């Protein structure tokens, strides 16, 4: 999109000159964002913190904001020469808004002390947690990721196979469908007390719960995808000598793939929820547990840091799944609104 627009705009433009060219616009935007972040740095560094709450990392936070500002200056200047860097320009409104938000947060908490502590720590307190406690945050992230990935992959695989089986075979449908109808809508967390009691470890119990939460939407969507395949696709393949196996693997499955991905996205969303609950209530590791622990000690800065990490983790995984879909379903690009 933007590249086309850029190309159009970089065509001949007699009157407006350099100031209206994309290079100039991206330069001006980038410099404005850079100035805003340098402004945040200046407020943080020059305006003294409220005396009774003297934060250790005020200087470090100011340096971080200044570094962001400097990086934006460099990106803006690079954008004059390299068109790739001009993408920064699209982020300029967001960069400005974020700078404004951080500045307000900094002023209201650290400088004026309007919000009660310890519930609303200033940004430098969160930076402090990230710098001082990054090993535990990192370990928590890895533990969460391990649990989530294991449960999700198992659930997605079983759900996919079950969905294809129900969609394809009358027998499988007869036996699996009622179970799915009865058990599926139950939130996976309802199984939590039972799971922790039945499974040997809380880790395996959590894997079961996450797999369950993922498996249900993947099964249902895969099934509806397979059931909705145009029957003419099967006719074609059958007249060309296709076996049952070929019909399933090379016709039903690829045709159902767009639905399967909807199920995978829904499953990923519910698996996050189950992960956090399972970690808070049973597994003594992971970001959910860290969150619980931080709340117990009234370490609210740690909690915000854990929330931030969790948000990055979840959105990172969703992005990863989007990338995978874009790769596998690129043939859809001309057919549906992407």
């Amino acid at each position: 999109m933007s590249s086309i627009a850029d190309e159009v705009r970089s065509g001949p433009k007699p009157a407006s000159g350099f100031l209206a060219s994309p290079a100039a616009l991206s330069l001006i935007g980038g410099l404005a964002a850079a100035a805003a972040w340098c402004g945040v740095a200046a407020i943080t560094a020059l305006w003294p913190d409220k005396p009774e709450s003297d934060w250790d990392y005020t200087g470090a936070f100011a340096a971080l904001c200044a570094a962001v500002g400097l990086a934006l200056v460099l990106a803006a200047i690079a954008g004059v020469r390299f068109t790739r860097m001009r993408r920064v320009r699209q982020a300029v409104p967001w960069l400005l808004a974020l700078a404004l938000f951080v500045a307000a947060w900094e002023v209201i908490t650290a400088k004026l002390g309007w919000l009660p502590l310890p519930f609303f720590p200033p940004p430098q307190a969160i930076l402090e947690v990230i710098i001082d406690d990054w090993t535990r945050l990192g370990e928590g992230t890895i533990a969460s990721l391990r649990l989530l990935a294991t449960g999700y992959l198992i659930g997605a695989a079983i759900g996919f196979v079950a969905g294809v089986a129900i969609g394809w075979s009358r027998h499988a449908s007869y036996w699996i469908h009622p179970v799915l109808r009865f058990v599926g809508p139950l939130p996976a967390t309802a199984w939590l007390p039972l799971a922790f009691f039945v499974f040997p470890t809380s880790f395996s119990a959590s894997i079961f719960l996450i797999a369950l939460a993922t498996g249900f939407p993947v099964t249902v969507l895969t099934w509806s995808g397979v059931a909705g395949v145009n029957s003419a696709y099967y006719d074609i393949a059958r007249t060309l000598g296709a076996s049952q196996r070929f019909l399933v693997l090379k016709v039903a499955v690829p045709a159902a793939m767009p639905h399967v991905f909807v199920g995978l996205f829904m499953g990923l969303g519910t698996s996050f929820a189950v992960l956090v609950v399972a970690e808070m209530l049973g597994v003594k590791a992971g970001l959910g547990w860290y969150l619980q622990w931080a709340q117990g000690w009234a370490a609210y800065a740690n909690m915000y840091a854990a929330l931030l990490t969790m948000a990055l983790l979840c959105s990172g995984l969703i992005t990863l799944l989007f990338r995978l879909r874009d790769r596998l379903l690129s043939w859809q690009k001309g057919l549906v609104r992407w």
Partner: protein
Amino acid sequence: MVVAGASAEVTRSTRDNPVRGATLTLREVSHHFDLDGQPLPVLDRISLRISRGEFVALLGPSGCGKSTLLRLVAGLNAPSAGSLLVDGEVIDGPDPSRVVVFQDPTLYPWRTVWNNVALGPEARGLLGTHRERIEDALRLVGLTGFANAYPHQLSGGMSQRAALARALVNDPKLLILDEPLGQLDSLTRITMQSELVSLWQRVGFTALLVTHDVEESLFLSSRVVVLSERPAQIRAEVVNTRPYPRHRGDPHLAELRHEVFARLGLDATW
């Protein structure tokens, strides 16, 4: 020459190259569907013999049961009564020697043109040895440059040609065509008709074409089988001995067209 009646003895087509096609025999084939518990008769005692390498057209009003008949010949459905034989053997299921080109090209949208054409060989585990043949089929229908395109990037005519290539790559003995040109604009249609004839002459398969276009049936086939309204019965057969390639302006074709319209009960409008 005009021969009417279902029992007409049919003369061989006037081609001189070796014939590789199959013979097809329909004996008293009837078929009905269940519609809300009521039987819906669609085919009524159809009997037909098609010789090796013949090009036969089935002509009939829309909804009379032509596609149903083709599905029986393809082996996709079993007839309610009667029997169908290919080379003397009863049809009991689909077989790659009998390939259908449907009204809709129905290419798989997730496969490139090349992979769509490769469907038959791939389904039978012959992909390794058939690469050359797939390229040949693409060249034959003029889609070599679009081997890596996806179906949504093709025009209607190109999609239909890709579907034709997908059928031809299997070297069918019987090619079953269900109004394959029905959705094309008249220019593309005329070109593709000529291409079909030259293909058939070169390859030598037996062809069974369904159409509701009288001109098309006369231009392509050596025999036009005229069907009645549903439930379809054979009303007449019109034999066309004109040598191939034919010319659209041929006055003999115009005469035959008159004859076919009469058989359809439409001579009043002529």
